[in-house]
């Protein structure tokens, strides 16, 4: 069966520190992968999406970057976190156009 793993579940990081959030998918090949950020009252905002290894598209210019080193691995990174990077980050995958499957999310608090 297809599953998606996202970790860590919660993270508290100081301002200026680096960030690395990892997402892996099992049970499917060549998925489209996505990083979303969910903020209270603002819904889900698409940050990055990838249609294949090494192919990253950014939707919103910001302090974050994404990489896809393997077919089923998607990483969200930052070199120096800002307070405004706090939020709930969701990884998702899709194959074709049949809706997304979301991971359990990472609650990031930058202090």
């Amino acid at each position: 069966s297809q599953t998606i793993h996202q970790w860590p579940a919660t993270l508290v990081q100081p301002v200026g520190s680096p960030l690395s959030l990892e997402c892996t998918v099992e049970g499917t090949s060549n998925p489209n992968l996505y990083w979303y950020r969910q903020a209270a009252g603002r819904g889900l905002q698409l940050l990055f999406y990838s249609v294949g290894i090494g192919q990253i598209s950014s939707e919103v210019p910001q302090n974050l970057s994404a990489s896809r080193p393997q077919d089923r691995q998607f990483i969200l990174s930052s070199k120096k976190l800002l307070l405004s990077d706090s939020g709930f980050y969701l990884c998702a995958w899709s194959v074709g156009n049949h809706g997304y499957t979301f991971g359990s999310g990472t609650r990031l608090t930058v202090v």
Partner: protein
Amino acid sequence: AQSVSQHNHHVILSEAASLELGCNYSYGGTVNLFWYVQYPGQHLQLLLKYFSGDPLVKGIKGFEAEFIKSKFSFNLRKPSVQWSDTAEYFCAVTFGAGSYQLTFGKGTKLSVIP
């Protein structure tokens, strides 16, 4: 610009009341439409989706939605809500044939009072 609007930020209902959550989008071309639900402390889950065919779509847990193309709407309905329906509901749309990028509304929080 393409966008998705959910006009109700927070809806409070008593058990057994009927539910309708509004969702509108701005785009004149082909769309695929989704409703997701997020129960407290849980993942986002797909409730139902519409790609083509019968504009009245039935989903899980007794939910349904109707696509009205002339109104650019995809409202979610349930005839009788339960306390367990308390959750946040998100409408989402892909714009354009073959598009796979979901654009979400801001969500509607539903609180059902026993």
